Each structure stands twice: as structure tokens, then as C-alpha cells.
């Protein structure tokens, strides 16, 4: 949570307001006062001392949320911190991130959640919602103190980074989570099928002689967890789905009335396994791995038909020297907070595949709905978490451009169109003219 608002009034003048939650798509001014939206209308007058931001030709949207971020603090502050990770978040247009618990130590108790909440209050540039571990030390053997963590501010529970291996353990967790109306976020990976897999099992695993990570390693746990959610009536959110088969399973479950949500990542939407060539670029090593072009198409179709609720980054910063290891030894993951919005803008909006209203649904409304975060709408009285997007701004993805402490991006060198120019968190201006405002 940001500290007190330094500016009493901010006037966003002449932007195109887009909020599909209230069927809003109109050009108007937005006046933010004392952390809330005070007024929306044409030709609003700026109060004395107000900061006026010209938003002509720009889009004004509810603040974007990333439900899947690795902030690495505590434990790997060389890779990212709550401060640097949230700088990256606001640079990418986000007003809130959900921090995954696979830190060192793992966030599996109330004190660990309080550490994140308290550090974020002091140091973060945007809101940080901690996610706690499902099982103690993410070992999949015994429940973590889910109730204590809820009381400390955890918004959901996940053993992200690993699948919960035993179905009985997942059933226990989903039953128990209902006590606190908590959401379980499932990382679906059956280790007995995946083994040492590092790339999609198929063309690339064969060509490069790398252990394969088969699609069934994800889909069997997706199918299992959907059934357990049906059994327990626990809220389930499926993380980083990567295959056409997983999307089909969720589509079927939703059609049957199950209250499940799911996310896909920009790298699974816009990259496929053919990108991994003889240079063994470890920035393309992800978990789950990049799949095939057909899977990419199925993920996009899932977004367009509402099967997929949101886009999440799975921002996974890693030290340069660790990504420089042999492919099989290098850690999994790509950074993503700063490239997510430009990628979606470039590959889906500029191409006419999607509208900006859909992007707001996938990156602002859908994420909040998935993890039951407070709703944010562009209405008077609403919380002033706002993202202003310049759809014509050009981005060349380079190491120097990142605010993140790490530069292990799968998209280095890409030329993209569209990015956040201003971000307001609780009425506080944290990004202006595309630059992070030092706090």
C-alpha cells in the first residue's frame, strides 16, 4: 500500500475512458482528490494546486493488476526486491501485484505475510497483495497456517513453483481453505510425468536433446484440481495455463457451472517452442515451457471467448550468472511486468484481434475478480487506482529500459507499440510521462 498522498488533486484531462465493467467508453476528464475519483465529466475545472495531466489520444483505465509476480524478497534481493519489483510494476502500468510465496524462507506463516505487508507499506510503489503457501515449506506434505496468513493479509494460497503432488493433499487444502473463503491458486505440474523436463516434449526436445516436459504433465493436474474444486466447492484459480488441452478442460468446467478462474501469461500467448534454437537461450526457459503455435492460438481463443479470465505475468527475475548456466541447469522464468501491456497492445490490439475494453477486462477487472480483490471502477467515489496508456508510444525492449533489478526477458530486442504513461495508486502519481516517480 502506498504512503499518504502527496498531491491533493490530480486532473486527467481529455483522455478516452475505458471501463467495460460499467460499459464506459467516452472522452472525458477525471478529477482525483484525496485518493479517490472525485468527478468525471467534460471540461472539469482544476482545483487550486492540482496537477494537470493532458491525456488527449491516451486511454484512461482502471489500474492494471498482476496476480502472479515473484518479488524475491526475502532471500534473493540480488534478483528483485519489493521496491524494485513494484517499480517495474508501475513502469509496466500495474497498480497492484500479487506476490508469490516461493521466497527464501517460503511465505508459509503469518509472520512472513506481515513482513511483506509491512515492507510494502514502507517501500513499495504500488499495492502488494501477498499470496501464502498452501503447504508448509511448499513440500506438499502438511497444511500451512492458512488462517493465520489470511489474518495477516494473504489474498490467496499457492505452492507456485511446484504442483501439489498428492491429490489427497490438494483436497485437504481446498476443504480447509473454505473455512476462510480463501482462493487456492494451482500450479499444475505432475512431477512423475514432468521429471527433469525443461522444454515442451516434442519437436524442440528432440532436436536439442533436452528432457521433455509433456503437456499431459499440466493437464492431468488441471483435470484433477477441477474435480477437487467441484467436490469441495473451494474457489480455484489455475495459474499459467499453457496448453490447448488445459483451456478445453476449463471451458468444459465453466460450462458445467464451476466457479473456477484461470490465467495465461504473455510469453505463452506470444511465443512458442520454435523460438528455442541451437543457441539454447535460457531466457526462453519457462515453467511451464513454451508450447506450440497451436497452443498459443488456443490460449488467445480462450481469452477472446471468456474461458480465460486474466493475463498474468509470472514475472520471474533471475540473476544473470544463473541464467548463463547450461540450459538444463539454468532457473526457469522470464521477467514480465514491464513487457506485458506493450505485448498485448502490439500483438492483439494493434492487429485488431482485441479491443482496449477487452484488455481492461483481462488485465484490470479479470485479475481482481479472480482473486476477489476489491473492485476498481472509473466512477466517482471509486478508489483512484488508474492506468493511463499511450497506445502510440514505442518501446524497444532492452536491458537499460527495465526498472526490474533483473533483465532475463524473453522479449529482449522486441519493438513494441503501446505502454503506460501514467499510473496512479490510491491517488498517488507513481508513473509520469512513462517514468517512475521517485517516492
Amino acid at each position, binding site marked *: 500500500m502506498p504512503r499518504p498522498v502527496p498531491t491533493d488533486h490530480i486532473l486527467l484531462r481529455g483522455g478516452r475512458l475505458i471501463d467495460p465493467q460499467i460499459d464506459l467508453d467516452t472522452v472525458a476528464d477525471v478529477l482525483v482528490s484525496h485518493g479517490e475519483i472525485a468527478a468525471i465529466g467534460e471540461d472539469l475545472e482544476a482545483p487550486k494546486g492540482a496537477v494537470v495531466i493532458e491525456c488527449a489520444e491516451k486511454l484512461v483505465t482502471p489500474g492494471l493488476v498482476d496476480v502472479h509476480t515473484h518479488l524475491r524478497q526475502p532471500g534473493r534481493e540480488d534478483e528483485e526486491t519489493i521496491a524494485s519489483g513494484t517499480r517495474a510494476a508501475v513502469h509496466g502500468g500495474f497498480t497492484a501485484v500479487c506476490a508469490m510465496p516461493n521466497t527464501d524462507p517460503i511465505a508459509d506463516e503469518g509472520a512472513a505475510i506481515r513482513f511483506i505487508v509491512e515492507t510494502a507499506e514502507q517501500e513499495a510503489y504500488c499495492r502488494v497483495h501477498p499470496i501464502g503457501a498452501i503447504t508448509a515449506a511448499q513440500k506438499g506434505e502438511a497444511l500451512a497456517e492458512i488462517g493465520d496468513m489470511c489474518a495477516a493479509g494473504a489474498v490467496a494460497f499457492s505452492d507456485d513453483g511446484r504442483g501439489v503432488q498428492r491429490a489427497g493433499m490438494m483436497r485437504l487444502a481446498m476443504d480447509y481453505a473454505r473455512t476462510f473463503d480463501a482462493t487456492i491458486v494451482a500450479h499444475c505440474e505432475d512431477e512423475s510425468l514432468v521429471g527433469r523436463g525443461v522444454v515442451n516434449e516434442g519437436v524442440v526436445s*528432440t*532436436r*536439442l536433446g533436452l528432457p*521433455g516436459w509433456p503437456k499431459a504433465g499440466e493437464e492431468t493436474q488441471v483435470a484433477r484440481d477441477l474435480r477437487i474444486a467441484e467436490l469441495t466447492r473451494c474457489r480455484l484459480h489455475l495459474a499459467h495455463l499453457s496448453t490447448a488441452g488445459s483451456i478445453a478442460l476449463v471451458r468444459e468446467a465453466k460450462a458445467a457451472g464451476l466457479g473456477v478462474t484461470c490465467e495465461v501469461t504473455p510469453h505463452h500467448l506470444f511465443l512458442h517452442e520454435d523460438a528455442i534454437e541451437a543457441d539454447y537461450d535460457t531466457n526462453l526457459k519457462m515453467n511451464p515451457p513454451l508450447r506450440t503455435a497451436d497452443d498459443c492460438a488456443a490460449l488467445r481463443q480462450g481469452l477472446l471467448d471468456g474461458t480465460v479470465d486474466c493475463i498474468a505475468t509470472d514475472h520471474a527475475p533471475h540473476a544473470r*550468472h544463473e541464467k548463463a*548456466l*547450461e540450459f*538444463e541447469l539454468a532457473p526457469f522464468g522470464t521477467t514480465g511486468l514491464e513487457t506485458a501491456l506493450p505485448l498485448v497492445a502490439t500483438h492483439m490490439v494493434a492487429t485488431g484481434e482485441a479491443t482496449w475494453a477487452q484488455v481492461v477486462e483481462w488485465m484490470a477487472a479479470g485479475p481482481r475478480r479472480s482473486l476477489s480483490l476489491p473492485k476498481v471502477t472509473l466512477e466517482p467515489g471509486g478508489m483512484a487506482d488508474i492506468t493511463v496508456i499511450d497506445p502510440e508510444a514505442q518501446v524497444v525492449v532492452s536491458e537499460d529500459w527495465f526498472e526490474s533489478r533483473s533483465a532475463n526477458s524473453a522479449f529482449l530486442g522486441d519493438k513494441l507499440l503501446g505502454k503506460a504513461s501514467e499510473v496512479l495508486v490510491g491517488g498517488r502519481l507513481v508513473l509520469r510521462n512513462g517514468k517512475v516517480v521517485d517516492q
Partner: protein
Amino acid sequence: MLQTRHIIDIQDLTADEVALVLDTAESFKEVNERRIKKLPTLRGRTVVNLFLEPSTRTRTSFEIAAKRLSADGINMTGSASATVKGESLADTASTIAAMACDLIVVRHKYAGAPRILAEKMDSHVINGGDGMHQHPTQALLDLFTMREAFGKLEGLTVGIVGDICHSRVAGSLIPALRMVGATPVVVAPPTLLPARPDVLGAEVASTLDEALPDLDVAYMLRVQMERAEGMPFPSVREYARFFGMNRARLDTMKPHAKIMHPGPMNRGVEISADVADSDRAIVLDQVNAGVAVRMAAMYLLLGGEAIA
């Protein structure tokens, strides 16, 4: 001379260059039959054998090849566990690069490791086997041996039998056979096949017994228990029964057909002792060709003078 700076993937070479390596190796094979088996060709050049995974035959073969060309050869061995402790491969590469070597031969537990070396140093790199990926000089020496045995390569049908999915030998040999106009056929239980053998260029036969009558060569691979996750077949006995080469199976093959094996052989598993010791097996010819082919690869990469 070769267009490529490195031989990491067999497809770093063109089909013409593969032929050039084999032809050059013919000359070196003749040198290896002399009493004085030494040429001054690479005098003053430094060849580092960086073997970060246990190997006796490949390392020895490269070492002898370097010595016969009068290069200064240095062996570096160790384990490839670039974990938290120890130096990373990238740092090892920079360290060796700082010592100004001309050629690195690398054997490594993980696929892609030779690329890390090639990026970090100016030297030429020969892949002496990387993980489950490739082992291009093995494919070249196998082609050399087949050409010697049959007088040609085009039109041969070569059955590669056994642990294909963990085999860097198959990873290079299958595309190499395609390059020279031969037909590779893989035979193995699906637990030992890669996901997409077609990507490498191989046809897949359902059983060994069906495949054998069509083959000119049965290339038996060693079962690599150390790389498998879980036993990929119920027992050695059952494996030998369905996928092992034995006298009865040999008798179903064409009269001129040959048996090959990259070594070391597990006698009684993928090949019976009597077949291994029969004159149909040309396993030692492969070893012999290895030195000449590696001399040719080193010579052509380092751009040596005409052969004396």
C-alpha cells in the same frame, strides 16, 4: 577448408564438407598405418580436451589424433556440476580463452554446453558429446566405417536400435545418414524413443525382427541406465529378448549386413558375445576410424597445410 568455425551439430557441416572430412580422413588413416605415425601439420597449435564427463575412448581418440598432428594437447577433466559450488562453464570458458588455445574439444553432461564455450572464446570448438544432444565426430567416424565396408553410403539402410532418446550418438548419426543419402530407421520400445524421431529424420520400425531383413547395418546402442528416469523396460532379460542382437537375429539379416556399436558394449544386453566377436561386427574398425576422422576434423578446422 570448412565454412564453419565449430563442429557442434553435425549440420554445421554441409554434405560436401562431410565428404571432405571423410576423404581427408582416408589420407590420415594411411598415416596411422605407417611406422612413424606423426605429421608436423599442427605444430605449435594448442588443443584442449575439456572432458567434464567421464570418457575414456573418446578422450583417448582425440588425444591421439592431436598428438599425431603434432599439436600440443592438454587434457582437462572434472565434473560438470556447475551448481552453487565451483566455477560456471562460462567462467571456465573465459579462463581457457585467456590462455589462447586454438581448439577446444568438449565433452559435457548437458546439451548446448559447447555453444556456451563457442560464445565465450575465439577458439574453434569440437563437440565431443553434449548431454543427450549430439556427438558429431562419432557420426563422422561411423560414416567413414560404413563407407569403408560398403564402398558407398548412398542407398544404405541403417537400423539404429535401442536407447535412442538418451543417445547423442543417434542425435548426430540420424541427420548425418540423411545428409549422405542413406535411410536411418530407429527401433526401440517407446520408452526409449524421443518424442519426435521424424524431426531428426528417422523412420520408425515397430519391431526389430521385422526391420532386420531390410538393413545393411544394425547399429546397436548402449542402454544408458544412468540417464534413464526409472527403468525403461522390465528387465535386462526381456530387453535382450526383444531388442538385443544375437546369432539367430544376425542370421535373418542380409549376408553382407554389418553390426556396429559406438561402445562401450554391454555384452548380453544389446549385443550377445558371439555376435560382438564375429567378423560381421565392425566395432573395432569404428574405433580405428575414430582417430583418422578426428585428425581430419582438427586439421580442417585449423586450416592446416597440405598433408605431407
